């Protein structure tokens, strides 16, 4: 899933300042799972903002709404009839949702309420970690199912960089060395001979090298 983190409230206060009628808009998908932009977070943020501006003596209206998804035209249509009531939307969706909203409601200012961080998973409640950087050409088959691009600080593709100590990465002793994990798992899978195969120079054109990417599937297009 896409993992997001809450933006500092001070930053949000600054960005909503120019507007009086604001819709705080959550999303029921990834940002709900990572507890940054779901219904609950919309409630908490909207009340914090109301409180702040009441204390400041300024009259602002913060309404709450949470859509099934903000990265989907269909769900964004659900709020078309109420959009005229707002000067701005504070969206707690990931960057994709915020942009989709901005495209759909061209004349309404959009403010992101979260920082979109990475593609990752819930390690345990309150801890999310990165697992993929959407490189567009997955190598997991050859790296024991552990991604060297998202999990190795230097994104090295052929074994550890030489800075790995006691299974930890040289950039931070709390971070596992991805290549240690890969080697350990290859060993457990009895596939260490694969480790000897030199991975050819990486094709980054499927990542961001060619600019924004598109997946076009004629077989499913209507």
């Amino acid at each position, binding site marked *: 899933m896409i993992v997001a983190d809450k933006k500092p409230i001070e930053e949000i206060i600054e960005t909503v300042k120019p507007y009086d009628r604001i819709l705080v808009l959550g999303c029921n998908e990834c940002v709900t799972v990572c507890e940054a932009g779901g219904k609950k977070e919309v409630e908490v943020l909207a009340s914090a903002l109301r409180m702040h501006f009441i204390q400041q003596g300024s009259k602002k209206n913060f309404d709450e709404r949470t859509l099934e998804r903000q990265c989907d035209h269909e769900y964004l249509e659900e709020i078309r009839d109420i959009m005229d009531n707002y000067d701005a939307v504070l969206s707690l969706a990931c960057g994709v949702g915020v942009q989709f909203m901005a495209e759909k409601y061209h004349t309404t200012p959009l403010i992101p309420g979260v920082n979109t961080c990475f593609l990752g998973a819930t390690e345990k409640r309150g801890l999310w970690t990165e697992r993929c950087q959407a490189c567009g050409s997955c190598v997991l088959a050859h790296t024991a199912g552990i991604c060297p691009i998202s999990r190795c600080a230097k994104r090295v593709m052929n074994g550890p960089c030489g800075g790995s100590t006691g299974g930890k990465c040289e950039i931070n002793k709390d971070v596992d060395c991805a290549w240690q994990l890969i080697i350990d798992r290859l060993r457990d899978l009895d596939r260490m001979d694969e480790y000897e195969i030199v991975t050819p*120079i*990486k*094709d*980054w*054109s499927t*990542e*961001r*090298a*060619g*600019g924004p990417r598109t997946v076009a599937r004629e077989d499913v297009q209507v």
Partner: protein
Amino acid sequence: MQFRRRFEAGEFTCLVQIDPPKGTDVSTMVDGAMGVKGIADAFIVPEMANAVMRMSSLGASVVLRNNGVDAVMQVSCRDRNRLALQGDLLAAAACGINAMMVVTGEDPSFGDHHTAKAVYDVDLGTLLKGISSMEKGRDMAGVELSGAPDFLKGATLNTCLRGADREVELDRMKEMVDAGVKFFITQPLFEFSMTQPFFKTADNYGAKIIPTVLLLKSLGMARYMARNVNYVNMPDAIVHRVLKASDKVRECTRMARETIEAVKKEGFAGVNVSTLGWEHKLPEVLGVMDGLKG
């Protein structure tokens, strides 16, 4: 050296664009430069133009200087992060390079290493700000330098734009001047009807424009540019002249010489001559410059 001194003295300057080799053999580049030594004030050394891998601009600039000619180095945001950019600039300054250009760089997908990852750690504005800071003795992280560089700074400019695009380019130009850019090298120009607004902006802001004069090599090249290169305005008359000429190469050389003359008459700060590998033609193309030296 020569280019910076003459430019800052307000004299008409002659630059020549010369590509570094794809390999270690610098003889073609050096021979090409030697052929017009004393006529060209400096050689602009592109940093892997069109994302084609070649010797770095820094390295080739130092080679040229070691051969007694002046070089304008380019630094590109595409291939280097802020550490590498600054490191190269310090090296350049220590090697005596005193003029440079900042370029964004074409995407690797245009070049011969199309699966490479681009860097773009900093954009042109941030880079220029960083260079200004370095010139005041502090790097981009604010750490003090022992010895500060000092460059005459340039950038590229596209004058072949209309409407809103032109406004954007004019704005970009102003921002660059604010960030310390003193000269702008244009795309190849064959006539000057569209340069006026840029000329005016440069004048107002205290920067100068140096048009690029490109030596055409064939009718095919002229036609290709007219049809496919949207940042170049190729007048029909030029294509027609090449078409009509019995000796096309001679006609192209004559046209390049005439354009250089026109650049001077139009009051530009200098000219940048590009022969795209035909450096052996430089003496003939630049013959017209002889009379310009005082």
